[in-house]
């Protein structure tokens, strides 16, 4: 029977000695979905990904990728793109030589020079890998992962070390991959990445899945009733609390220009807040009412999962 999921993980376990790196993880990823694995270091993200890539054998449970067993079915490798967390590139090869080499591994690869341009490495095409910056090497590694037009792509911390422009460009590439039907599974530490890029997110902690859902589902928690907004730094929080008829301690400037109002997120509060800001001719750059940030959810969940 064929499995409709692009990636199916069921009861996955992997132990290293007494350490349970992955401890009973199950999830499915639909074709064309961008799926994010979040979690602190040591949560089991990379182990999970490397089992899916066929590098490691599970101790228990099953994994299927494009309805193949990654350990057994060599045919999967021509349909799979891999970006390791680090390394994997010949230091002495020039960027263009390396990408052309990877293109030669696949039946119907993308044009290496065009792809090099897409990831913004045309100017570095003749640079040996060892002289590329961290972000450039990441982009080259990404290009190598997708040059074979894969149906499923595993990206282990794809934007680590990238500058904001490269990150944005990488997000665009991942969206393009998904738009043409490829399934993408990525791991990340960056909450904004998970929030903006992923259709669904799984939060791992201590080798287990602590939460799974769309970013909206995860942040739409019942306990999250605060109002959070960003504006110019240095607003008078006491005056704001007064305007909202709240106690002074309920309004805090968490970081410069980022304010938290600990009160039920009602339409009235939001109206009073915007009136207060209008009177001071201050513009809100961001406002979130009745939802937590994914970062807050993440911190809360991973803290709860600590033994």
């Amino acid at each position, binding site marked *: 029977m064929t499995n409709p999921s692009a990636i199916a993980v069921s009861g996955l376990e992997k132990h290293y000695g007494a350490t349970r790196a992955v401890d009973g993880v199950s999830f499915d990823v639909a074709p064309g979905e961008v799926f994010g694995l979040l979690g602190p270091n040591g949560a089991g993200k990379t182990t999970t990904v490397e089992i899916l890539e*066929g*590098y490691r054998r599970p101790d228990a449970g099953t994994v299927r990728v494009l309805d193949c067993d990654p350990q057994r079915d060599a045919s999967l490798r021509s349909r799979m793109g891999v970006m390791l967390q680090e390394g994997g590139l010949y230091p002495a090869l020039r960027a263009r030589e390396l990408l052309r080499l990877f293109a030669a591994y696949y039946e119907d690869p993308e044009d290496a020079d065009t792809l090099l341009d897409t990831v913004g490495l045309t100017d570095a095409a003749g640079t040996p890998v060892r002289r590329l910056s961290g972000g450039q090497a990441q982009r080259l590694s990404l290009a190598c992962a997708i040059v*074979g037009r894969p149906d499923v792509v595993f990206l282990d911390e794809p934007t680590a070390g990238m500058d904001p422009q490269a990150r944005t460009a990488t997000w665009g590439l991942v969206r393009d991959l998904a738009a043409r039907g490829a399934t993408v599974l990525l791991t990340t530490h960056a909450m904004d990445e998970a929030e903006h890029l992923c259709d669904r997110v799984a939060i791992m902690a201590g080798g287990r899945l602590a939460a799974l859902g769309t970013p909206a589902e995860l942040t739409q928690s019942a306990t999250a009733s605060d109002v959070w907004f960003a504006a110019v730094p240095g607003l008078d929080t006491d005056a704001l609390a007064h305007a909202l008829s709240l106690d002074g301690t309920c309004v805090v400037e968490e970081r410069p220009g980022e304010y938290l109002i600990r009160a039920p997120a009602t339409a009235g509060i939001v109206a009073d807040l915007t009136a207060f800001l209008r009177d001071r001719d201050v513009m809100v750059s961001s406002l979130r009412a009745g939802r937590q940030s994914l970062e807050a959810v993440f911190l809360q969940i991973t803290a709860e999962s600590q033994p």
Partner: protein
Amino acid sequence: MMRRAVKAQARTELLLALRRGENVLVMLVIPVGVLVFFSKVDEVPTSFDNPIEFLVPGVLALAVMASAMVSLGISTGFERRYGVLKRLGSTPLARSGLLAAKTATVLVLVSLQIVVITLTGIALGWEADGGVFAAVALLLLGTVAFAGVGMLMAGTLRAEANLALANGLFLVLLFLGGMAYPLDDLPGPIEAFAKLLPAAALSETVRAALTDKTFPVDALVVLVAWAIAAPLAAARFFRWEE
């Protein structure tokens, strides 16, 4: 595994081998240097009429050791360190294709070395006494043995330890390999030990094949044993990730 992938991989491996200066030094400059230097200094008292007859087979063995053990081993060790071997394992090339490409690369490099050393030898007055096919077959056998040793070290040691050991072993085997001077110049116990190593076994058998000396069957046995044991050990103990 596609032929195109293996071909592209072999071309890249060859490019990398020739791009590294220290690699060209150990594969070509040192063997040719040993050949020219020892043929000129006349320091080598041998039973041969012309020292070049002694030197060419020994330097061919040295060259095989340089490309199959030192060059292949060191580059593979660093590819393991940098995660290249791991990364290639999840491409359609896979491990089998990588091994095929590395084998092809070593064979091309050894052929290149044989041509350069033979031409240098001829320029220095060397004449082959027949037995060329036997000599090439023995050099291939030696390539298998030394590639096994190189891959065993590359797949089990840290890249820096592998680098140091491969270079150190190259030097030791140059002295104990009957390459630049005869084995029987060594003290008795050291000579007996040296005869068990693949370097002496290779240079002795190739030399016998290229001259009219009696063929040393014991050396051939040693060489065959290394050619079987070393690759088996490498296959058994090789770790793809450092």
